[in-house]
């Protein structure tokens, strides 16, 4: 039968067999947190993702973006176009209403004149 000490030693041996090689170094690294060299590796990896000619591509894209009219200028142009169309519709409507009035007036004048002529003319039946 094992003594209590022996049992503890077995437990420790089993537990320590679970630790992979380099445990102490890993624990220390984790305790210290990432070092500057690791951050530099991260930055270097990121820098490698930029394809050659990055700056030229950015400037070309910036020029292209500048040539596209901004949202506000597009809105202003739409508003101006809408205002122009509205003014044109009002003008045409006003003008056609005026022409119709003139035509109607002329018709009425003609009718009035014909009526007056009819009134002034001698009554053929009475003769």
């Amino acid at each position, binding site marked *: 039968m094992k003594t209590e000490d022996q049992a503890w030693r077995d437990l420790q041996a089993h537990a320590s067999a679970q630790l*992979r090689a*380099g445990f102490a170094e*890993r624990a220390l*690294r*984790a*305790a210290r*947190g*990432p*070092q*500057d*060299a*690791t*951050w530099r*590796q*991260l*930055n*270097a*990896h*990121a*820098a490698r*993702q*930029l*394809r050659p000619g*990055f*700056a*030229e*591509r*950015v*400037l070309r*894209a*910036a020029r292209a*973006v*500048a040539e596209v009219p901004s949202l506000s200028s597009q809105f202003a142009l739409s508003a101006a176009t809408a205002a122009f169309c509205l003014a044109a519709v009002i003008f045409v409507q006003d003008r056609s209403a005026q022409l119709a009035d003139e035509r109607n007036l002329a018709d009425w004048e003609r009718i009035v004149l014909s009526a007056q002529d009819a009134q002034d003319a001698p009554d053929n039946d009475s003769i």
Partner: protein
Amino acid sequence: MEPSSTTALADLVRRAQKGDENAQHELIMAYQHRVAGFVYAMTNRSDYVEDLSQQIFIKMVRAVDRLQAPAQFESWLFRLARNTCIDQLRRQKLRRIFLPFGEEHENIPEPAGAVDPEELDALRHALAQLRPQDRALLALVQEGRSHAEIAETLDTTVAAVKARLHRAREHLREHYQPDHEN
């Protein structure tokens, strides 16, 4: 390539503000690697680096003439970078809500052997566990920004930066396990 002094940087920025393309080119060349590192730390995605860096520098070229203090260029640039990355992460999150099946397509693993010495892998893993704001904070510190500059970049106080930085470092250490099980 980096502008050697604050005065040289301010001169370069002033020239860029006047539309001098050589100065704009020089600024991009000077900061592209640092911005790429910042984007990678923020997003943990190699395939975002070029695209987001490009967006950041396009914004820089278009808005640099509105920068009031050329000496504050670096803080301003990294604020642009931070906001661009956070917008991207928000869009990504929204896309996951509307297209939940796309998640496995979004978490594309790095190609084997492309990155990972053990510690870099651990750092990437630990950063991925943090909130984007904390990642930004740590990346800005690594950029060599002072607490005051970070406070200005993040629109907060130096005391708040210190407190948040302390917490972010604690969290990073908690998750930083070289040789972690993926």
